[in-house]
């Protein structure tokens, strides 16, 4: 789905997260929900963030957008936004007034549950025009209403639905309204947290196609969060995988699919039965995701990892270069024992997937 494949780091940076740490609670009982997360989103890129529930993926973006609520606490790191005029804003340092300007106009958010995100007692028109009124006070009411019609048309909903309340729309239409709202001020970054998880597979596909068209038209970047790695491989340019609050691998989507480097990614890929080919027994990953209150020592994945060596239970591996532009956090790739052949599959050619 892409013009610029850029886990290679050659693209223009738009959002840069460095060393972000987020705890829930304070003191010795604090739960480390996100630890030392590094993430770079380039202009025009679709970056996928994959992970299971509790892996910290939603916490990461809520912290990066300063939407985290207590008892969530940001304990370290920086989040830089490059609006494209040469300046850089550290979102973690920005004051409330500055954030208020940036939110929605530069960074917007689409959440999973449109039914909860939309106000049930307000019409679609009111909800669409509210953001316009807040950010563009010079717009007249008439202009705002015209813009609302335009926004709905963009996501394929006819203007006569403006007077509807959320409960009068189907799940797919509500999610489309959410996307229209997110695009109202033409932001550069759209963060989507499981935007299609609650939808049927056909509706999901329709919305993803629309999103692709909109992205091609307006050139915004997408940070797409989902647990469905098989979907992400299709739609993202590059993918970051999270486990137990840490990023464990980052790679271009195709390379990640064909040649995973981290054992967790390998296991996750082996958890989606294929739609083609002979049926073979698959195993998924033994055990369950850890409780963040009682994280295993060292690498949090080591109790479930079939490649674990002694060091894995002692030290947490850093997210280091794992060949080419790729990053992975695994001791087996960084000199402890031979690299297992499963984690050393040659990378496919980095062909840019064709843009339709």
């Amino acid at each position, binding site marked *: 789905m892409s013009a610029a494949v850029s886990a290679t780091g050659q693209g223009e940076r738009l959002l840069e997260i460095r060393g972000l740490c987020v705890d829930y609670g304070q003191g010795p009982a604090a739960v480390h929900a996100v630890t030392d997360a590094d993430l770079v989103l380039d202009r025009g890129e679709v970056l996928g963030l994959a992970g*299971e*529930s509790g892996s910290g993926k939603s916490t990461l973006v809520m912290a990066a957008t300063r939407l985290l609520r207590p008892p969530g606490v940001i304990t370290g790191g920086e989040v830089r936004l490059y609006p494209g005029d040469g300046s850089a804003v550290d979102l973690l340092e920005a004051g409330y007034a500055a954030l208020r300007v940036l939110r929605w106009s530069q960074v917007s958010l689409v959440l999973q549950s449109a039914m909860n995100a939309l106000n049930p007692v307000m019409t679609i028109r009111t909800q669409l025009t509210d953001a316009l009124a807040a950010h563009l006070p010079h717009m007249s009411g008439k202009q705002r209403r015209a813009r609302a019609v335009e926004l709905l048309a963009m996501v*394929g*909903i*006819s203007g006569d639905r403006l007077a*509807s309340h959320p*409960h*009068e*729309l*189907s799940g*797919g*239409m509500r999610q489309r309204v959410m996307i229209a709202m997110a695009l109202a001020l033409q932001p550069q970054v759209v963060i989507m947290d499981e935007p299609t998880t*609650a939808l*049927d*597979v*056909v*509706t*999901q*596909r*329709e919305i993803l*196609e629309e999103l692709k068209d909109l992205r091609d038209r307006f050139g915004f970047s997408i940070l797409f969060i989902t*647990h*469905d*790695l*098989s*979907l992400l*491989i*299709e739609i993202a340019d590059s993918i970051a995988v999270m486990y137990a609050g840490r990023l464990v691998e980052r790679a271009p989507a195709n390379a990640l*699919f064909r040649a995973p480097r981290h054992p967790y990614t390998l*296991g*996750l890929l*082996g*958890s*989606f*039965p*294929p*739609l*083609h080919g002979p*049926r073979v*027994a*698959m*195993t*998924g*990953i*033994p*055990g*369950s*995701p850890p409780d963040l209150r009682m994280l295993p020592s060292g690498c949090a994945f080591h109790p479930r990892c079939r490649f674990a060596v002694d060091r894995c239970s002692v030290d947490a591996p850093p997210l280091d270069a794992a060949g080419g532009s790729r990053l992975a956090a695994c001791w087996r790739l960084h000199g402890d024992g031979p690299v297992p052949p499963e984690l050393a599959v040659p990378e496919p050619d980095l062909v840019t997937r064709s843009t*339709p």
Partner: protein
Amino acid sequence: MTTPVLDAPPVLEARGLTKHFAVHGTVAAGRRLLRGRAAGPGPVVHAVDDVSLRLMPAHVTAVVGESGSGKSTLARLLARLIMPTAGDLLLGGEPAPAGQRRRIGYAKTVQMVLQDPFASLNPVHDVHYHLSRPFMVHGLAKPGADLDDKIAAALERVALAPADAFWHKYPHELSGGQRQRVAIARAIAVQPRVLIADEPVSMLDVSIRLGLLNLLGDLRDREHLAILYITHDIASARYLADQIVVMYAGQVVESGPAVQVTDSPAHPYTQLLLSAAPDPERTTPVTLLGRGAPPSAVAPPSGCRFRTRCPHAMAICAEQVPPAFPAGPAHVSSCWLLDADVPRRRSADPDADGHRPDADGHRPDADGHRPDADGHRPDADGHRPDADGDRPDLGEEK
């Protein structure tokens, strides 16, 4: 429409099972419905219409469909939690009992596992209590050592061992996968012959889903359970099931051997589902083989219910309900395209965008891709959910 006849007699067989729910019914009308009497006058939701299927011992039958397709209603009908409006349910060849007192005997043979193990286990009771209930209710064990042994055996059947490490745990102390295993252990404790699993893995973390699916496969192989696996995920149905039954708007539109149905889908709706499913192996851009949302279940379209979304719709599709046509060995599909006698007359006015697929009904290849991949771009307005948007709630959960 029936699934193909296999060698063994079916454990559980549905014949023409139908369930209609009154839309604005009175309490009295609701009671009549629960007793399985005909719905009174007034609009009804056609939740399940004329569904026939057979559950075979040591077989997994998957029911695949979108939300609102009636698959959960079908599960509840088969579990006898609700009574059908019409149609028969045969257990081992005998009509299933209707009365409340005889229901308990039915429940000993047909058990159910629900979607959400966070909700289906009682948070104030421990594992031991949950597993003691089926034995006590069905009078299968005496309290004490006998009961404990049987509970331990049930836990070991779902690979929760050692059993005594688990039975004093409360649901909140278990992981999602362990909880669902407890729910399965509770269901198979009474040695049922049929297990109805309604979306048993969709609430679980991705990395542990396969473990649960493999457990269901083991129960099929080891204990010869007949399993009905209800899912919206056609890839997992292909992985686990022997047979796949595809439901659309309350009806079965296609059924056949799992790999056959997913590799050469005969019904346009199955083709649409497969074209929309996530598939990392896909190399070409997705071409959705159809558009729009499922029809209203209160006033379903005449003839074939899929015709309003079908890229192949012909005049006859609106006139007559398609019967099940053979589409391969043990594979049937309710689509007029498969009828050799019906002239392939296209409906008089093709879509405004002129993107009708070719008239000779090209089948997609194994990847679910149509040969003319660029011919079906979405049009600007033809593919939106219908204006009334809100579909009636059929009791399905996401």
